[in-house]
């Protein structure tokens, strides 16, 4: 199983990263995935209280976040028997419309690819140490105490 995890402190273009990852997969692996599932998450322009959002601040626990992402990805990918996995996550200040997370899974069948992608996304949202702080247009801010509903 091929696994790649990166944290980005500046903006990344998910489709560019995805294309590069797919190219790498074709060159490196003897086993080509016949099914791929992707998820791209972007920052909303509205805060949890409905006010305009200026930016989202993403804090993480250096060292543990990377380890925990790896543990979650390996566990999920092994359970679903997938071929490859890509996780890209932003840290720092993220603006509305910018990508915050990209999860991509390559597998032999669509079922494992889609299930693994969704499960890994939910796992990292709840069990990888990241914290979001909303900065509103009026200069006020608030740490979020959970995730949006599925």
């Amino acid at each position, binding site marked *: 199983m091929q696994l790649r995890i*990166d944290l980005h*402190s500046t903006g990344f273009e998910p489709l560019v990263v995805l294309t590069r990852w797919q190219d790498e997969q074709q060159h490196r692996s003897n086993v080509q995935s016949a099914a791929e599932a992707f998820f791209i998450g972007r920052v909303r322009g509205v805060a949890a209280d409905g006010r305009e959002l200026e930016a989202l601040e*993403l804090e993480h626990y250096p060292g543990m976040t990377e*380890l925990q992402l790896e543990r979650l990805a390996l566990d999920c990918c092994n359970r679903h028997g997938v071929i490859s996995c890509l996780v890209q*996550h932003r840290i720092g200040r993220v603006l509305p419309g910018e990508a915050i997370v990209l999860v991509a899974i390559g597998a032999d069948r669509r079922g494992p690819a889609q299930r693994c992608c969704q499960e890994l996304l939910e796992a990292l*949202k*709840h069990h*990888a140490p*990241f914290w979001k*702080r909303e900065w509103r247009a009026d200069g006020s801010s608030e740490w979020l105490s959970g995730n949006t509903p599925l």
Partner: protein
Amino acid sequence: MVSVVFMAGPCAGEIRILLFAGLREQAGWAEQQWPANPNDDAGLTPRQLWLKLQLPGDLDQAVRVSINRQFADADTPLQPGDELAFLPPISGG
């Protein structure tokens, strides 16, 4: 892009305590070294440290504990050299 980040570990004989996000701001500090005295602090747990440090709120309600960068039970005995973190509610992705 950051792939691997190294943080300084705790000094031998001490427990390094880390706080993050809203919990850090409520407490007013990000990091402390707790001098683990083998006589007084044998079997010291995160729950006991939470109380000794008078950290805000209820540990069981919304805070998770990690020891040496792995989630752990709040009643796990700590060892000198451990890195303990109190983690407020996670909101990634």
